[in-house]
């Protein structure tokens, strides 16, 4: 036999059949054992669920923004309600204007009650609030006068 033919003879070398059978079954069962690990499956599922939930929340927050938060959250954040804030701001403005109005009426009341008194009476110096309200009280008793004054004041304000 020449060298090539001798080398071809090596092709007939084969493993022991019993070894092949055992090795095959061991190898194929190796992965099966590794796969049936319940802890791994559970862990993988938890990881998957957590990542999906977080990704969903992130997308929801980006798309929906704070309006979604306002709609669905049990904690209402007043600072994030522009309509409420606007109404509150307007109410403060009106209260300030009404306070000024009361102050003006109080100043005019003594002038209207006495005819002999000069028409233009200097406004009383800033007095304690209790004193002002004491002066205002009789002025409010004159309903017609005060009503006219408020109307005039509102007209001025509206202008």
């Amino acid at each position, binding site marked *: 036999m020449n060298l090539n033919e*001798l080398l071809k003879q*090596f092709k007939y070398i084969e*493993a022991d059949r019993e070894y092949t059978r055992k090795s095959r079954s061991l190898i194929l069962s190796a*992965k099966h054992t590794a796969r049936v690990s319940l802890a791994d499956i559970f862990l993988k599922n938890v990881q998957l669920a957590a990542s999906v939930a977080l990704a969903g929340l992130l997308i929801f927050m980006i798309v929906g923004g704070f309006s979604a938060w306002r709609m669905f959250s049990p904690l209402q954040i007043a600072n994030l309600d522009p309509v409420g804030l606007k109404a509150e701001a307007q109410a403060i403005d009106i209260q300030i204007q009404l306070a000024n109005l009361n102050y003006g009426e109080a100043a005019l009341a003594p002038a209207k009650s006495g005819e002999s008194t000069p028409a233009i009476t200097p406004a009383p110096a800033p007095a304690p609030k209790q004193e002002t309200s004491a002066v205002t009280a009789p002025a409010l008793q004159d309903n017609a006068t005060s009503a006219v004054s408020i109307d005039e004041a509102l007209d001025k304000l509206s202008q």
Partner: protein
Amino acid sequence: MLDGEQKLIERAIKGKASAFGSLYDYYQPRIYRFVLIKVGRREEAEDLTHEVFKNAWLNIESYKDMGFPFSSWLYKIARNQITDFYRAAKGETSIDKIDPEYFAIPASIQLDLADKMEIERVKDAIQELKPEYQDILVMRFIEDMSVKETAESVEKSEGAVKVLQHRAMKELKNILGNSSRQ
């Protein structure tokens, strides 16, 4: 190449043991021969071949079809396994200590005594070759792989394979010539 190999690989990647079993049945004899010719001992060849297929099965998800045959992936694992084996056994095993009884041509093959002796001599000569030459000789002359397939398996160009094949045969003839003179 095995018929329907691509589908078998795809199914094996999905975890179908039966598909990998078919791949094992087809490639195990080749890998076993490859390992046995390189390590020389039947027991060690069996252990290493078992490890090769076990690693292949456990890591089959990492196999990517890059246009190379599946066998090239298995040969690569086998070469790494043999390298690790020699590294671990460094200083413990040498070719001189190899027991010839472990390298046995099956009784089913009818050869006269002179042929059997010649085969033993060739086997000894192959084991004296560099691992690179061994790989080429086994793939080209024993497994009848094409130059292209061999080149893909050893990750070299086809030209390099032809050159290595020529050198390997020359070296083998030299060793055999020297042994016959002794």
